[in-house]
């Protein structure tokens, strides 16, 4: 079975500071993609960043970066210079390349609050 675990139900960060959201996963697939999606109060699912498992280099998207540790099956999200608009629910997701197309497995999410 493939699983995604987010151990932090809630996190809080001061505006302009840095915060790291944790995610661990388990899969028997040799190749897969990992994602972080953001869900603001509007409840839309917005892609934040993605990482191909075969790439050792950590993905970055502006203020968002990941720390991908394949051996440890860890995929944390770092948000730098946090902004009020970053406040949202963040879901970590796993999509195996060799597995079922589109059966994206999500963690339970981490609710991020940003304090002004």
């Amino acid at each position, binding site marked *: 079975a493939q699983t995604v675990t987010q151990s932090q139900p809630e996190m809080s960060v001061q505006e302009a500071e840095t915060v790291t959201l944790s995610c661990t996963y388990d899969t028997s697939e040799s190749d897969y993609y990992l994602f972080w999606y953001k869900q603001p109060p*509007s409840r839309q*699912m917005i892609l934040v960043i993605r990482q191909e498992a075969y790439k050792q280099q950590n993905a970055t998207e502006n203020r968002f970066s990941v720390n991908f540790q394949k051996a440890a099956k860890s995929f944390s999200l770092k948000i730098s210079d946090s902004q009020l608009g970053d406040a949202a629910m963040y879901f970590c997701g796993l*999509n195996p390349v060799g597995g*079922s*197309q*589109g*059966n*994206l497995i999500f963690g339970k999410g981490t609710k991020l609050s940003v304090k002004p």
Partner: protein
Amino acid sequence: EPEVTQTPSHQVTQMGQEVILRCVPISNHLYFYWYRQILGQKVEFLVSFYNNEISEKSEIFDDQFSVERPDGSNFTLKIRSTKLEDSAMYFCASDSGSLILSGNTIYFGEGSWLTVV
């Protein structure tokens, strides 16, 4: 930027009634999906659709549910005889199917919030 669009954004229905949720996936995408999120819970996969047929479905997707691509642009989820526990946000999603173009990235719509009373 192309996006997945869903209608309605919110629907209230009586228990036992049929509901159809509509989606327009991104135009050059080949794979289409429905996901469900019960309030306060994680997003769960329901079904994937490719080449005009279901390619995979979860255990949630029982005989009460069906999907259809009635024309070249729309993708629908039908829920027959709705139950209270069907109340949830339903997300439509799509992807190009190309690892090169989009790296297995699935693009979600804004969701349709279904309330069964």
